[in-house]
């Protein structure tokens, strides 16, 4: 389970943030997350994976791909929903959740 | 509108074992299956049995005219289960015969009483009532916000063998 203080930090950015467990892993659902300026769409539901998955130390999934940004988009099924992620590695899990999130969003700046 | 109910063979046997137990004065027992649910496109539901909650002996109320009458304590405990975790609740009892069971008038009345109660705590989830026979099941589901009971179309008992009881064929 996530550190409660770190989860509260995420909630300040994204009020509906909540944990979604699946198969002994915990993801953090971030509804209507605002994406960096210039992104299409400007916001999307997101799922933050703050643990190792498929060889990535952490990962961010979005409900739809961002047009023209990120590369090697691929599609996953997690928590009974479809998500999209891109190739963006080396965002360490050894930091606060909000830093992990911002580390992934850096790909779109 | 399609509603299907699935549970494992292991869970079903737990339910049957409990419902078979004699009670000091009730002719039959009642229990609740706490369940998760999901949608079937375009507008159906699947209810997935997770755990079984027997009605405690002391929560039955003597009544000569019905096989089993449960008191407010039983309902309160069932609602607490649904409140603690977001769960669909399935009222269950059994009839002692083989072949397709059916709801009696009393069964229908009791299940109609039960479902609105659960909506007080879980209004956004479907709930159901089922009756078992020795080798079959039947039941009704209620989707959120609707008073209309819908016959459960398929029952799947997940085990080896996989048993599927279809009501719509």
């Amino acid at each position, binding site marked *: 389970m996530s550190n409660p203080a770190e989860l509260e930090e995420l909630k300040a950015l994204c009020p509906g943030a909540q944990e979604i467990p699946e198969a002994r892993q915990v993801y953090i659902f971030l509804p209507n997350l605002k994406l960096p300026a210039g992104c299409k769409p400007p916001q999307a539901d997101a799922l933050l994976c703050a643990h190792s998955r498929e060889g990535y130390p952490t990962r961010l999934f979005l409900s739809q791909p961002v047009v023209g940004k990120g590369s090697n988009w691929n599609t996953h099924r997690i928590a*009974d929903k479809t998500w999209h992620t891109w190739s963006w590695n080396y965002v360490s899990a050894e930091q606060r959740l909000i830093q992990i999130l911002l580390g992934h969003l850096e790909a779109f700046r | 509108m399609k509603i299907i109910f699935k549970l494992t063979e292991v869970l079903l046997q737990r339910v049957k074992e409990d419902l078979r137990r004699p009670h000091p004065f009730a002719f039959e027992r009642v229990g609740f299956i706490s369940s998760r649910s999901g949608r079937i496109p375009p507008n159906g539901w*699947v209810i997935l049995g997770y755990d079984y909650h027997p009605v405690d002996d002391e929560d039955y109320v003597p009544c000569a005219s019905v096989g089993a009458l449960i008191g407010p304590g039983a309902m309160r405990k069932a609602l607490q289960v649904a409140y603690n975790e977001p769960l669909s609740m399935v009222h269950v009892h059994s009839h002692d015969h083989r072949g397709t069971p059916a709801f009696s008038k009393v069964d229908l009345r009791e299940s109609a009483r039960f479902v609105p109660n659960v909506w007080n705590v879980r209004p956004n989830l479907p709930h159901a009532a089922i009756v078992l026979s020795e080798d079959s099941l039947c039941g009704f589901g209620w989707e959120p916000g609707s008073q209309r009971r819908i016959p459960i179309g398929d029952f799947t008992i997940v085990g080896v063998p996989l048993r*599927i009881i279809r009501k719509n064929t």
Partner: protein
Amino acid sequence: MNKHQRQSFLGPNSESILRSLRIAIVGVGGGGSHVAQQLAHIGAGNILLLDHDRVEDTNLNRLVGATEEDVKRNALKVEIAKRLIRAIDSRTDVTGFDCLWQNAADVLHDCDVIFGCVDQFTERKQLEIAARRYLTPYIDIGMDVHEAAGRFIIAGQTYLSMPGQPCMSCLGLLPDEAIAREAAEYGAAGSRPQVIWPNGILASLAVGLMMQLVTPWFPGHNVTALLEYDGNSQTVTRSLKLDLLDEIRCPHFCSLQDLGDPFLWS
């Protein structure tokens, strides 16, 4: 004479059982095309096909039902499988989803059985999780040709993943390093060796597992869930891994959170 007369030994009502089944095949390439063909022959009534891919020249060595003409017109694999099924049994209700399976996964919610005939470990893992969420038996087939010490080794397995029983992670069938390698290669299957006969064997074993599960001919409760294929010695053996895990409850799917749609109540 009923065309399924020869399979009447499967038990009374077996024909109606099979006719009423709703079965999904995820991936209708080398393995899935065999499964589709066999399900049509045995009389499965409702088949859903999920695959986004189109046939290429290099598929013709193993894609059951595919023709040179299909390659010329770049046909969808689901279209080829649909045609194959309908030619065998016109009564079968076949629906094709020519997209990534994840984009149509809601249709799996009310399936009775799901066959996973996909190339990648990460796909299998996601499929098994999706099946377990809806208490759906999931039958996975996997085949590999690899080179070791100067020779080629053909190996594979068929696994029936049942709710409450050990999952593919419990059995070591989804190695983390293989999944990581796939992700690093961005999922490109590339020109991995693939041939028809191991696909056929594994698909047949998979359909056989399903038949043991759903028809009355097999009255025991001992469906052998994990079958290992050695393509060099041409043998299939029941894996001993399940014996070792016999009393162990799967720790990967034991939680309430792994059941149903978590967004319904979140």
